[in-house]
């Protein structure tokens, strides 16, 4: 995409956002809405700036928990997917368990986990992992099973080992599926980390939102929320970037 086309395409969305913010700012002043109910964007920005150094620490904690949960969901999810695809017996044994972990609302597990594992970052990482690993397992398994049977016949007719076929055919074939799951997982990890912080913690952006609202500091809660969504967007973008680097063949023709 050329820079010029990018600029043209960005005009309308940017104008919409700027317009909405201006309207919001004006409305709070004209209608005299109390700051604790709906703070104007300028107040949110000012409060965020005020908190910039303290935010660094809290953002780091949430980022750390999110990335920990995401990494764990891949380290556990991908091998699980491989087991499920290669062994029908394990598939029958594991699938119900995996679905079971998904059927329990994570927000309900979080207090129990914190009770068992205590405070600190580990239980939040585990909550983030529990929320995030499901799409990794399901999508990777789907991808591994999506190899055309002809290719498997072809590998077999060349007497290639199962390991070689896995490395050279099935795994790369599953890559786009894996990344689809990973993109969902990274955004879910952010949610998991915040849920963990809500249940019990003394640091992280989730904690800031919770304590800010209990002190009627709505503008602080808003700036935390903005930081959280920026973090989620950046992380999503990072996974997409890795996908482009790992799977360059997925770019539409003529766009490399």
């Amino acid at each position, binding site marked *: 995409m050329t820079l010029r086309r990018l600029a043209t395409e960005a005009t309308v969305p940017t104008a919409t956002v700027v317009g909405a913010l201006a309207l919001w700012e004006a409305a709070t002043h004209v209608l005299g809405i109390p700051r604790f109910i709906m703070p104007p964007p300028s107040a949110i920005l000012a409060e965020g700036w005020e908190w910039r150094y303290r935010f660094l620490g809290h953002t780091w904690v949430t980022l750390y928990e999110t990335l920990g949960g995401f990494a764990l969901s891949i380290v556990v999810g991908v091998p699980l997917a491989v087991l499920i695809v290669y062994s029908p017996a394990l598939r029958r044994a594991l699938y119900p368990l995996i679905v079971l972990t998904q059927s329990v609302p994570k927000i309900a597990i979080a207090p129990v986990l914190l009770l068992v594992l205590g405070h600190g970052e580990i239980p939040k990482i585990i909550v983030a992992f529990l929320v995030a690993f499901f799409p990794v397992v399901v999508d990777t398994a789907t991808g591994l099973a999506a190899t055309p049977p*002809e*290719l498997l016949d*072809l590998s077999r*007719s060349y*007497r290639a080992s199962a390991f070689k076929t896995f490395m050279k*055919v099935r795994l790369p074939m599953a890559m786009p599926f894996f990344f689809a799951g990973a993109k969902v997982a990274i955004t879910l990890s952010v949610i998991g980390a915040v849920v963990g912080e809500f249940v019990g913690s003394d640091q992280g952006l989730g904690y800031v939102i919770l304590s800010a609202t209990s002190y009627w500091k709505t503008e602080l809660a808003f700036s935390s929320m903005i930081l959280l969504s920026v973090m989620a967007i950046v992380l999503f973008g990072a996974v997409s970037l890795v996908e482009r680097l790992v799977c360059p*063949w997925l770019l539409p*023709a003529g766009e490399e």
Partner: protein
Amino acid sequence: MIRLDHVEKTYRTRRGDLVHAVEDVTLEVGENEFVTLVGASGCGKSTLLKLVAGLTPATRGTIHVRDAPVQEPFPDVGFVFQQPVLLPWRSVLDNVLFSVEMLGLDPRQYRKQAGDLLELTGLGGFETKYPRELSGGMQQRVAICRALLPDPSLLLMDEPFGALDAMTREEMSLELLRIWDERRKTILFVTHSIPEAILLADRVVVMTPRPGRVARVIAVDLPRPRTIELEYDPRFKAASDEVRDLIFAGRGAPR
């Protein structure tokens, strides 16, 4: 080269039904012979190819390739399917090299030959392209190059032009004959198309469905190199009438 003796293949579907895919097939294919298998869907043509390649065991009967019984896949075979099934993450050249790589050979030593094959099939200059940048016919040419690169003496083709449009299909048939002229091999070629079966083959094996049996083997008495014009030859017409009669005989359908 290939000898099938009273080969039978039955298998169970997932629902537990017993399917007689191939029944009592006895057939001999000579060295460097081009044999086409023609018949309606479900007459076990594809199963027969898998049996010859050793990808699936025969329920009864024996299969020999070069006097050795076929019990498992053997490396002297090239496979081309209806779909090109290329690896989308590999360039055209690396897709061609896939076969030697899977055979455990050093792909670097085959780069030149792979390039020559691409040149031979009119794909010179496309080495670095991804498969998605190629048309269906070009992709199938890459699949043929991939099968040819290790220089197998036996080429098994399962409706390789079945997914192509009629014009590309004709073009590819003649191209295959040209390649076969340069690099002689034994070819077993499955097709739905009667004209294609006759145009290509030394002998046409006509099969009838459920269970798959050989109805008749017809020697094609046409000169080589073959051209499209041969389709107007009375001998071509006679052969295709014979095939059509055999295929539709059991159905009571008008031809």
